[in-house]
């Protein structure tokens, strides 16, 4: 929700601090601030209103009230302070099919208006929060919504007739197949005709049974305000949050109005919306309000909730007195009565705070307004965990055994492009199915990594994964933990030596677990139902120690290919491989990725070493010439030490 600093100031008054301070106050006591920017010469603060406060804080007045509460000061001007006194009209009637769907409907008749551009102050405010000014009537409806959070909608009263001296509004569900022509959306010229399925709530012109708007979502073309409109009817109502939400989502029209209804603002709010818009339209469009219809069929009041001092302090970890708690809750505009024993108080939220329903809601108010920074940490006591989780115990044991055999661990995607268990609604085609095994991914991992063995300093690729795989029973998706391990010793796919290493690793695991395991082996990859193994293993009594790792920073992998060069040389017996490597590395510069010793033997007082040097650039593909130049330096370094390059 974007709010304009100067607009907030109209409500809070001179006590409102600068935007920087407002940002801090909201961040630590109410809502996170997404950003602050200058628009149209105004300071605009983007407030990330929390979902439980979307009912009252999707408005400048709501944010202003929040700031006044934090600052412990009354609002200078509060559009919700006094219940509006509105004259009734007998020129409008409404018939509501389902009270639950529309518990309150108000409509005001304003005659003799002139549609024109809005005054500068109004255009500026709307532009500052990213809204395009349209004309004074539409702008006024938007202004009221952003000011106090009540969506309001204007109809041209001359576009549908009175019957028996009354405009006949009907609020009813759509019939399946019924269509409504909606006003063009922002930035589009064309109206949108939507077909309805019967779950949507409509505002209908009773004289002709024609839909004039999709309740709470979007106005219709039929009675829309236009440049020549003279007499208008303004609707301010309360629509059921779920019905509004479903309609808006299904038709893809999630706009500021529907978003507000979805979050169930107070049922008291519509008349405040009327008071605001009538005054504004009379001011900027001329005309006069002939009266307001207020059909309030089902009233709700916020509950009176008992808040105990003991629970408040015990949840927050504070030692507040009942007076402190009472004072903080009062600051929010709640009415508070402290019980004679001073152990509890009864609190009731002001009408717009439909979120304050249980004791914990009020305790949250106390905590955030008093300040979470004042909470003292309770240092946890050291006690051994009572039970050892078998899955964690055995998976770690297996991991460390496999690491010791040269296997590295991978974690791969749980999704497949093709498979047996398809998801209902995956956004991405490569995530349409869930995996039924780990082997499929592991084969790909082996293929992919084999071309990197030089870069990794490895002779072969050995990997394993422990992860969840899915299957289907008649009535449910079932899952189990799986273990797969795989080996690739040659670049051109599976060969017999792969199988030998896999079998040896499987045997070692069987020894480790003292069990004969049901492996499924295929082309150098073996997989096992690990859940089954763990279920039948003895219950562990203590976790193995977690080996500590030295601190490291990850280096992003270059996307460019690496080039490898081998060098073999004779040195005098006794010269260590390390010493030779150091000399060879010295002139290579920062394009060298790594050096690995891959062969070594001693004969007749001389030792032969063979090293593989791997080169790679972070920003380009290296050329053979570049690497040849570096290798020339390496050869020179070797010769300078009187080593014989073979």
């Amino acid at each position: 929700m974007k709010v304009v600093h100067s607009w907030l100031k109209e409500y809070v008054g001179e006590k409102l601090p600068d935007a920087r301070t407002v940002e801090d106050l909201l961040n630590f006591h109410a809502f996170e601030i997404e950003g602050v920017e200058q628009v149209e010469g105004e300071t605009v603060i983007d407030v990330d209103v929390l979902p439980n406060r979307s009912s009252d804080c999707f408005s400048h007045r709501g944010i202003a009230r929040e700031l006044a509460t934090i600052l412990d000061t009354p609002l200078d001007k509060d559009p919700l302070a006094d219940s509006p006194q509105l004259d009734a009209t007998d020129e409008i009637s409404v018939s509501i099919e389902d009270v639950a769907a529309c518990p309150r409907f108000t409509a005001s008749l304003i005659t003799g208006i002139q549609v024109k551009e809005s005054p500068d102050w109004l255009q500026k405010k709307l532009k500052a929060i990213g809204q395009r000014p349209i004309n004074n009537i539409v702008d006024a409806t938007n202004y009221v919504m952003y000011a106090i959070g009540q969506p309001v909608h204007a109809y041209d009263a001359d576009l549908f007739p009175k019957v028996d001296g009354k405009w006949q509004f009907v609020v009813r569900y759509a019939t399946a197949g019924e269509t409504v022509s909606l006003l063009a959306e922002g930035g589009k010229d064309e109206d949108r005709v939507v077909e309805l399925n019967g779950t949507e709530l409509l505002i209908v012109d009773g004289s002709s049974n024609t839909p004039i708007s999709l309740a709470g979502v979007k106005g219709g073309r039929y009675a829309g305000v236009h440049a020549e409109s003279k007499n208008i009817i303004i609707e301010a109502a309360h629509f059921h949050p779920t019905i509004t939400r479903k309609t808006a989502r299904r038709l893809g029209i999630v706009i500021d109005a529907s978003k507000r209804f979805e979050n169930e603002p107070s049922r008291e709010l519509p008349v405040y919306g009327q008071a605001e818009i009538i005054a504004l339209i009379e001011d900027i469009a001329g005309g006069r309000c002939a009266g307001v219809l207020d059909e309030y069929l089902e009233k709700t009041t916020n509950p009176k909730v008992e808040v105990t001092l003991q629970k408040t302090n015990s949840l927050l970890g504070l030692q507040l007195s009942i007076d402190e708690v009472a004072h903080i809750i009062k600051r929010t505009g709640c009415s508070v009565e402290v019980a004679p024993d001073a152990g509890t108080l009864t609190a009731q939220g002001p009408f717009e705070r439909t979120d304050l329903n249980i004791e914990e809601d009020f305790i949250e108010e106390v905590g955030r307004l008093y300040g979470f920074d004042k909470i003292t940490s309770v240092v946890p006591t050291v006690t051994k965990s009572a039970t050892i989780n078998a899955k964690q115990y055995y998976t770690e044991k297996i991991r460390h055994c496999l690491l010791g055999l040269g296997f590295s661990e991978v974690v791969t995607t749980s999704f497949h492009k093709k498979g047996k268990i398809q998801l209902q609604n995956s956004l991405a085609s490569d995530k349409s199915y869930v995996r039924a095994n780990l082997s499929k991914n592991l084969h790909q991992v082996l293929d992919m990594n084999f071309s990197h063995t030089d870069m990794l300093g490895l002779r072969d690729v050995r990997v394993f994964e422990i992860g969840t795989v899915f299957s289907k029973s008649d009535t449910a998706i079932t899952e189990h933990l799986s273990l797969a391990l795989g080996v690739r010793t040659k670049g051109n796919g599976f060969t017999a030596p792969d199988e030998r290493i896999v079998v040896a690793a499987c045997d070692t695991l069987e020894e480790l677990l003292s069990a004969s395991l049901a492996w499924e082996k295929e082309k150098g990859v073996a997989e096992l139902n690990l859940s089954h193994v763990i279920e039948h293993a003895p219950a562990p009594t203590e976790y193995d120690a977690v080996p500590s790792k030295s601190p490291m920073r990850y280096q992003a992998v270059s996307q460019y290919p690496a080039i490898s060069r081998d060098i073999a040389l004779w040195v005098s017996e006794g010269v260590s491989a390390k010493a030779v490597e150091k000399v060879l590395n010295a002139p290579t510069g920062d394009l060298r990725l790594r050096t690995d010793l891959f062969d070594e033997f001693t004969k007749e007082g001389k030792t032969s070493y063979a090293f593989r040097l791997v080169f790679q650039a972070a920003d380009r593909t290296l050329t053979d010439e570049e690497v040849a130049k570096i290798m020339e330096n390496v050869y020179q370094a070797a010769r300078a030490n009187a080593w014989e390059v073979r």
Partner: protein
Amino acid sequence: MQIPDGHQHPLTHMIAEINDIFAKIGFEFAEGPEAELEQYNFDRVNVPKEHPSRDMQDTFWFKAKDVAEPTVLRTHTSPVQARVLEQNQPPIKIIAPGKVFRNEATDATHEAQFYQFEGLYVDEGVSLGHLKGTLEYFFSEFFSGKIEVRFRPGFFPFVEPGIEVDMKLLEGDSKLAGKWIEVMGAGMVHPNLLTAAGIDSKKYSGFAFGMGIDRLGVMKYGVEDVRDFYTGDLRFVNQF
């Protein structure tokens, strides 16, 4: 030539470290299914149907023809809370690490699958002070150094009050040292969760928290693209 030791994946290593740190203060390792019933993933953690709070998470659904009860790939580890609460009586002290799923576009900071861990402590007199102390203990152990933790107001349907937790590394050469970083959502267990599990919410209270393990890896190791965790590329894994 001797075969060098393999490398453990940073995610499972971090889970082992997290478990080790929490086991020392009596937290047990708990689990739940990745294919989770809608009931547990949402309703039982106080996220009712058709409620705007469900918008916070984009969900993968299994096909209705495959399941008797609506089933999702769990969007968070919080359903483990509901499962543990209904099977145990306080005191309850658990962590629940595991893979979770979001049906959304991926980029360097978002994966459709990632790891989270949940913490839950329910007993008589558990307060936000316990939460703060526990988190300070955890982060200082996990990052092996001095840290600070601060709370801001937050909203998560399964807690009330709800808290956003920021953390600052006070030492070290990490790019993130000295800066406040939003690390997790937390709060006091919503009484609806306790009541639904048959636990007296007048007598018992609890804290809960949940955070991304991938995100911990980003902070601890400087991984810049969270998708790297899931590529199976040993040029990534073997650096750890």
